[in-house]
């Protein structure tokens, strides 16, 4: 954890982890006995009109596409061969509903050949049908350009990771050069977008140059790699408050996902290994490559991480990740890091009020009047906060909470406010 320096006058400079160029290959994690895949759709086997396609005991092959309901375009790609042992509802952050599909892994691996036959000639439909559940988690908008309203005209490939301590994208850039070049070619071909920009850190310029995309340097100081900051600093477009980058015609995709697209069409098999950093309690970082769906506790036991009561397990980076409540939680396509924090050295939030010290104002990259904003959010005045105090300008970097002297959960308040306002507007839209 980065501590405040003795000289508090200077603004802290928090840098991204720079990947060592001589980094060894990530350690391949052996396939576990049981994997769980999270399907981004609620599990309602009885209320739905459409037939449920999956049931307990079904056998699945590696790389097989699994859809829960007939006619649904939401799917997961099985990362193992085995039989489905359970299908259950799963509740994620902010009340998002998922379906957890647990698979008992069989001894012998059998590859599904459905994609291979199609992959000879890459098209948008194939990518959409098979490649949204790949390591690096490409956004839905990447494969939907042309047919939906916000038309994408620029693709930005992130060669750096959005959060601190994570090196999955940098590693993809370094070791999967060919796959990325292939992926960029395929993206150009299937989307018809010529304007593909690679945002890479300075020390990986050479590797980024091979990809065939236009290369731009990203600053090494957090939060320069957050989409909205890249939009402003690299593309020179400022995203208006309340709009998304997609609405501005820019789609962000991670280098790992591009590499996975390249690999999928190259080999005919959908990649199933996710690169991730395991950051242990003492701060040691190990880069591993594990099958999507591997439960995190198996990784802990393999790397001698002892987990006690009241520890904290985080999927993702220290600034924007999310903590999980079960060590059986699986690795997902967007899990780039697992951080374990000892319960004794957690920095917990407090219920102290804002003392107006101004630290957040000085560090906020979006120049939001955080001191005023947080007062309105605490009182539940979300609409005023959005109108007068720039709630929607927030890039959600978490730096305000990081420096808060009162240790207020500022980012939490901001996300809650955005969520509540989103609920209100959906309710209004449906009632109108």
């Amino acid at each position, binding site marked *: *954890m*980065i501590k*405040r320096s*003795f*000289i*508090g*006058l200077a603004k802290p400079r928090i840098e991204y982890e720079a990947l060592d160029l001589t980094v060894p290959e990530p350690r391949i994690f052996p396939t576990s006995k049981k994997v769980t895949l999270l399907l981004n759709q609620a599990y309602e086997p009885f209320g739905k009109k459409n037939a449920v396609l999956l049931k307990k005991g079904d056998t699945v092959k590696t790389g097989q596409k699994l859809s829960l309901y007939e006619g649904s375009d939401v799917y997961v790609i099985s990362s193992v061969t085995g039989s489905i042992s359970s299908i259950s509802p799963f509740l994620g952050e902010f009340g998002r509903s998922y379906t957890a599909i647990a698979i008992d892994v069989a001894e012998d691996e059998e590859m599904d050949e459905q994609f291979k036959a199609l992959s000879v000639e890459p098209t948008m439909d194939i990518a959409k049908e098979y490649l949204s559940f790949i390591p690096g988690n490409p956004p839905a908008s990447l494969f939907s350009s042309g047919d939906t309203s916000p038309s994408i005209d620029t693709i930005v490939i992130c060669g750096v990771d959005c959060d601190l301590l994570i090196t999955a994208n940098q590693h993809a850039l370094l070791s999967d050069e060919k796959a990325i070049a292939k992926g960029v070619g395929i993206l150009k071909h299937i989307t018809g977008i010529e304007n593909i920009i690679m945002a890479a850190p300075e020390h990986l310029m050479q590797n980024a140059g091979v990809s065939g995309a236009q290369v731009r340097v990203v600053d090494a100081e957090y939060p320069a790699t957050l989409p*909205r900051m890249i939009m402003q600093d690299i593309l020179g477009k*400022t995203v*208006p*408050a309340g*709009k998304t980058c997609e609405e501005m015609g820019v789609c962000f995709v991670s280098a790992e996902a591009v590499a996975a697209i390249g690999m999928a069409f190259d080999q005919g098999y959908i990649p199933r290994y996710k690169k991730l950093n395991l950051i242990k309690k003492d701060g040691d970082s190990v880069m591993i490559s594990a099958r999507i769906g591997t439960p995190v506790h198996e990784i802990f036991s393999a790397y001698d991480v002892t*987990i*006690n*009561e*009241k*520890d*904290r397990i*985080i999927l*993702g980076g*220290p*600034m*924007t*990740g999310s*903590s999980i*409540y*079960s*060590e*059986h939680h699986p690795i997902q396509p967007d899990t780039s890091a697992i*951080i374990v*924090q000892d319960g004794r050295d*957690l*920095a*917990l939030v407090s219920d*102290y*009020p804002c*003392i*107006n*010290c*101004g*630290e957040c*104002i000085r560090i906020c*990259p*979006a*120049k*939001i*009047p955080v001191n005023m904003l947080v007062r309105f959010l605490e009182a539940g005045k979300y609409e005023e906060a959005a109108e007068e105090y*720039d709630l929607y*300008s927030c890039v959600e970097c*978490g730096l305000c*909470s*990081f*420096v*808060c*002297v*009162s*240790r207020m*959960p500022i*980012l*939490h308040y901001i996300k809650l406010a955005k969520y509540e306002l989103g609920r209100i507007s959906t309710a209004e839209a449906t009632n109108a």
Partner: protein
Amino acid sequence: MLNQKKFIVSHAPFWHDGSTITARSYNMLIATLPAVLFGLINYGMPAVGVVSLSISSAIVWELLFNKISKRTITIGDGNAALIGILFGMLLPATSPWWLVITGTFVAVVIGKHIFGGIGGNPFNPVLIGMAILMVSWKDFFDFNEALVNYDLGFAMVYPLSALKHLGTSGIDAFSAADLLMGQQSGAIGATFGLGLIIGGIYLIIRGVIRWEISLSFLAGVFVTALFFNISDPARYAGPAFHLLTGYTLIGAFFLATEDSSSPVNFIPMLIYGAGTGIMAVLIRNIGAYVDGVVFAILLMNLVNPLLDKIRPKALGKVV
């Protein structure tokens, strides 16, 4: 799955830079020490009594208020102690015990907790306490009268009242170097200019106070005093005198910079600081009071919410 371990689940970010309100308060307490110790050595046991009583009574008032209002006990954050020590620093060494206790009551309860505790106060609590005492018991704040029994080896005349009553001819005895080194009579913790400056610089370096406020305050005092001095050198003292006497330095580094009652954006901080400095000299030179820092800061506290509306445009803001 039933007897699985329970983890702490919280929201991002999962890192914190480790700063706390307690550390902030204690840093300010440390920064006051040079000036306070100098005052204690000069004025002896009565000053020790006043400062100790001031700190302890401020803490007790806060504890009592916490108990009565059934809220969490907040004396551990050091803010009450800070209010206490700053309040003690502003008093003459001969202040009676009841004056100190009344003052800290006003400061802690009326100045701070009525508004919801730390962070909620629109005015600097210490100055609320001081202002009410100064208006109610004027005589105790006449430093010439209060310190009449002291002889510390330098002119025991309160420089600002000498200036007020006699014009610049009354302050010939004070050289800037003497004033800086604390060779002047006055409040316990406000006379040792060098100590206050050292404390202030420490706080600025540690990032506890905002340098913009302190510097613009001093600049405001300097420029205004300079203009007065040029216009009538016989009546108005020069800028150095105004900078080093009365509550100017303690005001610049410890009082005007109070978090909750001062602005946080860059331009508002400059306006706030400069405005306070200008008002302080205006009150000293053409107002009724001998020292104007207390009322100048309170007045600018009042303007603070308006000033803080001047702020940079947020990212992607559509106007």
